[in-house]
Structure formats: C-alpha cells, structure tokens
C-alpha cells in the first residue's frame, strides 16, 4: 500500500468521526483489531481494503507510472431487536456516509503534500449487506466499498538533479566565443 492510499483512508475516517455524524456510532476504527465488543455497536469501520496499480500510459516509457485504485471499505455494523427493520437503520447511515464524503469538496478535491490535487475520480461505489446468523442479537452489516482513483509516479531519487545545461560555443574556423547559453530542462 502506498502512503497516499493510507492518507486518503485517514482523511475519510476523519470526516466521518467529527461533528454531528459521529453521534451515529458508539465506536469507530481504522483497523480490524482488537476484537470488537458487542456493547460498542453501532460501529463504523473505515478500512483500506485493497490497492491496485495499473499502468499509466506505455509501461516501458519513463519512470514507473501507475493509475492507482484504492478501495476503501466503509462498514456499519449494528444490532436490532426487530428483524423486520433490520436493514432500515444501516441503510440510512450508509446514505449519510456517501453524502458526507462525496459532497465534501475538501475530500473530493483532496490535496497531496505539495498542494497538488490528489484524487482523480471515484469510479466505483458498491453496497452490500451481511447478516450474521449467530450471535445474541440480530446483527446487520452494511458494507460500502468506495474506489478512489489517483496517479502514482515512482520518480528516481535525484539529489543532484540536472536542471539546466550551460552551453558555451565557439564558431569555427574562427570567431568569437559565444558564452553561457543556459538551457533549462523540464523537470
């Protein structure tokens, strides 16, 4: 996993655990450990599930360049006393999560450490339900998977990078020296 994916996961988590939306969870977490206790429901989990890097352009040109698809797993786990309404509450909460993240301009146009736009698009958002059959109550888990696409380049470290070329020319067979034509190189 690249640091950028983790950064995006953390930014999503931060936005879902502040303000009024945090009142919907009794607990929240970014890692699947330690074991969740059943008196801490409803629980919001924001995981970095997977990261896929696909070539960005020809794969044998320039430095390794990728289009990264980071899959965030957003899970709401809750209990209910009435199986008739088991999915209603988490459905509302799933809508709230989608709206909170995707209408937040500071998240959608997230910047990296250099101030450049980071996220390119959100090409996929899926929602699934899981009903564990065992346990002391009726449980339901709504699983959102949000794919976040961004570009990821692996430029070689160049502490003495060539930034310009200083050219001094002398016309032949005779002529005055033409000094210091400085040609800046694109970085």
């Amino acid at each position: 996993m690249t640091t950028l994916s983790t950064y995006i996961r953390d930014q999503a988590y931060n936005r879902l655990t502040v303000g009024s939306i945090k009142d919907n969870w009794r607990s929240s977490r970014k890692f699947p450990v330690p074991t969740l206790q059943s008196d801490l429901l409803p629980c919001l989990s924001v995981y970095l599930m997977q990261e896929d890097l696909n070539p960005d352009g020809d794969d044998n040109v320039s430095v390794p360049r990728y289009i990264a698809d980071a899959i965030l797993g957003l899970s709401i786990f809750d209990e209910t006393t009435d199986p008739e309404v088991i999915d209603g509450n988490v459905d509302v909460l799933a809508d709230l999560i989608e709206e909170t993240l995707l209408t937040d301009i500071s998240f959608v146009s997230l910047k990296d450490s250099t101030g450049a736009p980071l996220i390119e698009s959100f090409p996929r958002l899926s929602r699934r339900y899981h009903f564990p059959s065992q346990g002391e109550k009726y449980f339901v888990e709504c699983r959102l998977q949000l794919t976040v696409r961004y570009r990821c380049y692996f430029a070689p470290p160049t502490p003495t990078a060539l930034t310009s070329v200083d050219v001094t020319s002398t016309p032949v067979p005779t002529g005055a020296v033409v000094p210091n034509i400085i040609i800046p190189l694109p970085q």
Partner: protein
Amino acid sequence: MATFSKPVVVTPKKSQPTAAQFPARGVWTIDNISVIMENDAPMSTRVVKLGIKYADFKFVPMQGDFISSKAGDLPLGYLVEKISPSAMVDFIIDNDQPDGQGGCTYIMKRSTARL
C-alpha cells in the same frame, strides 16, 4: 433439568397469538463466539440457548415466540450491563434444535433494547 432449570415466561406470540403468557422452565447455556465482519474483523458475541423438555409443555413454543427471564436467572456474567437481577430480559426464539430424545434446544436472540 430439575436441578439446573430456571423459571421463564413464555409469550406465544407466534404459535398462539391470542393465548396468554405462561410459566415454564428451561436450562440456559451460553457459547462465546466471534462473528466475522468486513476485512475479517472479529466481533465478540454469544450464542444464548435454552434447553427445554417437551413433556413440560402443553403447547410447545416455536420460532417467533418470546421467552423472558429474570436477569438474575441468566448464566453468571452473561449481562455485562448494569441491570437489576429482578429485571426481565426478553428473548425471541430464532431456531429450535430437537435432540430426538424428548428435549429441544432453542437458539435465542435477545430482543430487549440496548441497555
């Protein structure tokens, strides 16, 4: 059964919708398990079971019926919340598992709201 059973109250909401509650007895057992959630995250919970003897019942409870018990009659340590031992805790029958020898184990789901 005679030694370990505890008193319960059966509300036959599903099997006899118009019938009144009636007392019965059963043996409570608890299994501690982990339910696996997204990203293989474990959540600790319990399976609550009530063992009954068919011969003790004129009408046998079925899935969807309610069974209530005093908190103090439930297995020690089951309820971690602060609750009076005399408070009633309601369960709904989620599944029944007859043992073929005149007994049955009910798999219960707690229906009392979050305490």
